């Protein structure tokens, strides 16, 4: 049975660099016809490490492998008349175009909304830029580190009394790209009715600022500047604890503060641990008490005595069975073997015919029952579909 994706029939031109490349992946794996339009040397995404067999090359970036699944690739040299004509022909055939990078650099390549809307007034053009198209810092150079710093997330993470640290994994680019996808889809949904396109202006800095939990409101309402908490417990029962094969994360004291049920579950779990009976004292239900240094130290000693000779998996199972919100601090290796992911067939095998090999890719962020997420094919080779697209456009023009 072949099923069409939710976005079947939506053609998307993807001119994004690493800042916005995830937007196109989201749309491609949902069935849109996403075409990477790359310069002759290939998109900068292809230059990001790590590389297959450790060797850099246009087809070897594993970041590119991940970010460009289900897309096609054409080469168009936008410095030439032929390249620009090809782009314009593509634009006439498309509903969406995505760019990312600094606004000035995009304008130098002729990638402005005004220019492309003349070619296709129905076009939704999404521009994912570090600080937005009209921000005071619009022309500042920025990468993930700079955007996590300027967006405020970095200050909240790191070692108290020492330096802040950036979260792993280009999260600012993912945040910008995810908001890019939501904005793009809202505009494309509207355009399907009105026939009219528009510009979607995404600021990555703003996307990061959206991730500050309640820190902005804390400053606005209470005048308090939120500080980083580091690797320490944030009150007894909330944080990292060592176990036999790594770390577990225990999270007693949810947002909203209701702990009675979970604390009782915790003390039941620890019933056989020496000295754990002191945790039955009702003052442990008080968040202020749990936040004292004494309480933290006492709890840490008791709980880590319990966890030290048990595995992450054991603790996860036995704690959750009693209703304790605990989980392992997973490594990539843990994830590759995670029983839940394996039971749900999360990983999908993707063929790389030119390598005579196939690899297990991480799977769907969401499961749409009628129009399933799907990696239709591995990331395209550079320019793999240039001739095919030129033919398609000719046939479309002839009709």
């Amino acid at each position, binding site marked *: 049975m072949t099923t069409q994706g939710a976005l079947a029939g939506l053609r998307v031109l993807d001119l994004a660099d690493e800042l916005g490349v995830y937007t196109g992946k989201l749309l491609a794996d949902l069935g849109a016809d996403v075409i990477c339009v790359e310069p002759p040397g290939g998109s900068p995404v292809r230059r990001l490490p790590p590389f297959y067999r*450790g060797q850099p090359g246009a087809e070897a970036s594993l970041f590119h492998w*991940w970010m460009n699944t289900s897309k096609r690739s054409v080469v168009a040299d936008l410095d030439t008349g032929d390249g620009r004509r090809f782009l314009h022909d593509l634009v006439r055939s498309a509903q969406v175009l995505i760019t990312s990078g600094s606004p000035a650099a995009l304008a130098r390549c002729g990638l402005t909304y005004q220019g492309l809307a003349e070619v296709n007034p129905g076009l939704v053009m999404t521009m994912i830029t570090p*600080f937005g198209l009209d921000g005071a810092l619009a022309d*500042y150079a920025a990468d993930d580190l700079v955007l996590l710093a*300027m967006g*405020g997330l970095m200050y909240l*993470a*790191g*070692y108290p009394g020492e330096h802040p*640290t950036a*979260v*792993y*994994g*280009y*999260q600012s680019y*993912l945040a910008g790209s*995810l908001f890019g*996808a*939501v904005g793009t*889809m*809202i505009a494309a*949904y*509207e355009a399907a009715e009105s026939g009219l396109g*528009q510009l*979607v202006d995404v*600021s990555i800095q*703003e*996307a990061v600022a959206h*991730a500050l939990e309640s820190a902005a*409101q*804390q*400053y*606005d*309402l*209470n005048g308090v500047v939120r500080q980083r908490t*580091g*690797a320490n417990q944030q009150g007894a029962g909330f944080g*990292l604890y060592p176990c036999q094969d790594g770390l577990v*994360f225990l*999270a007693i004291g949810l947002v*909203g503060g209701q702990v009675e049920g979970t604390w009782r579950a915790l003390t039941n779990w620890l019933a056989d641990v020496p000295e754990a009976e002191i945790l039955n004292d009702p003052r442990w239900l008080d968040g202020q008490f749990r936040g004292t240094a004494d309480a933290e130290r006492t709890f840490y000693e008791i709980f880590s005595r319990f966890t030290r000779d048990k595995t992450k998996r054991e603790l996860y199972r036995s704690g959750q069975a009693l209703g304790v919100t*605990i*989980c392992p*601090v*997973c*490594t*990539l290796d843990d*994830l*590759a073997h995670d*029983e*839940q*992911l394996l039971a*749900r067939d999360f*990983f999908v095998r993707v063929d790389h015919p030119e390598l005579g090999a196939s690899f297990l890719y*991480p799977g769907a*962020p*969401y*499961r*749409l*029952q009628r129009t399933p997420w799907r990696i239709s094919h591995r990331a395209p080779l550079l320019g793999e579909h240039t001739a095919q697209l030129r033919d398609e456009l000719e046939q479309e023009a002839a009709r």
Partner: protein
Amino acid sequence: MNLPLAGIRVTDFTWMGAGPFATKPLADHGADVIKIESMAKPDLTRLAPPFAGGRPGVNRSGYFANRNSSKTSISLNMKTPQGRDLARRLIARSDVVINNFRPGAMARWGLDYRAVASLRPDIIYVDMPADGTEGPRTSYGGFGASIAALCGLHELSGDSDRLPVGTGTNYPDHILNPLHTATAVIAALYHRRRTGQGQYIEVAQFESSVNGVAAALLAYNVTGQAARRQGNRDGHHAPRAVLRCAGPDRWCVISVRGQADWAALCQAAGHPEWLDDPRFADVGQRLAHQDELEAVMETWTSGMDRYDVMAACQAAGVAAGVVQTTQDLIDRDPGLRARHWEYLDHPEMGRSLYDAPPFKLSRTPGGLRRPAPLLGADTDHVLRTDLGLSGAEIDGYRQAGVLA
């Protein structure tokens, strides 16, 4: 002007973190998002600080307010058959139903997908369980911070030789899970507009969050080599560092992406002699001497205002930024002031701060249409205008505890 999602109705059972942030962009772009709450069991973020004026109250939380702009709130006691019946009648007039309860909760109310689809065949129905509605861990609980640990992100964030620190927040609640969900919902609406078909969507928050480290996970599957946490460094560029500036806990970041950047930075710093230091001669040398490199650079930055360091680097074309505090973001970032922060007048909280959407549509822009709703503020209005109930009927329900 017509908002782009005008006419879309969402019956929103979500609470806490990830769910309300998934429906916020829909509400801010015109969807009619009705939060189903109950006086007895409100959205728990209503009980979470920060509170306006520091005084707790179900209508005073900034944590709640920012996640629930442009929405309405009704109070239904779902423990009563009449409450569940009213919910069913609302759902029959809705396009999207969404919840982030543990698996089974909606079924206990008779509101699982199968039941809802019989009321409204083209419904788009979203479950957002922690680990999934199927699999060995279906019954397990989780929320933002624990899912960050479970998905691998926590372990990978922090200095290489120390315990990991993660993000210091419930990060998956704020970006990965709500926005993956919103993307799926709008894609499903797009499909429905084309075909008339609704569908069931499951967003297992664990799987959604694993997608936040998926490039590294693929690399591990392919190469057998696992990425490791390395603080602010990336193993490929140097300097790529956070550096101390003048003042208490004041920091900047500088990210040099090539030899030309390095030369420009040395000039901008007024230290052309760094260029001649053999330890820093090329990227390989700089990577091999990162501790010394960062220490040398701090001799420059530590005496300077962090914004001046940023400006000096940027004038030379080098990527740099200030590690901004929330105070900086709100009080001294002109771009965010112009584009992002919005103050709304809330009936109990007064003038208070919200995040505007990080994306702007040029022709049909969304935006914050209303401050967060008071608990149950729209119960009468929704029952009257949407379900056609009379005042007497509503009073009857209220006296029977159905709207409690």
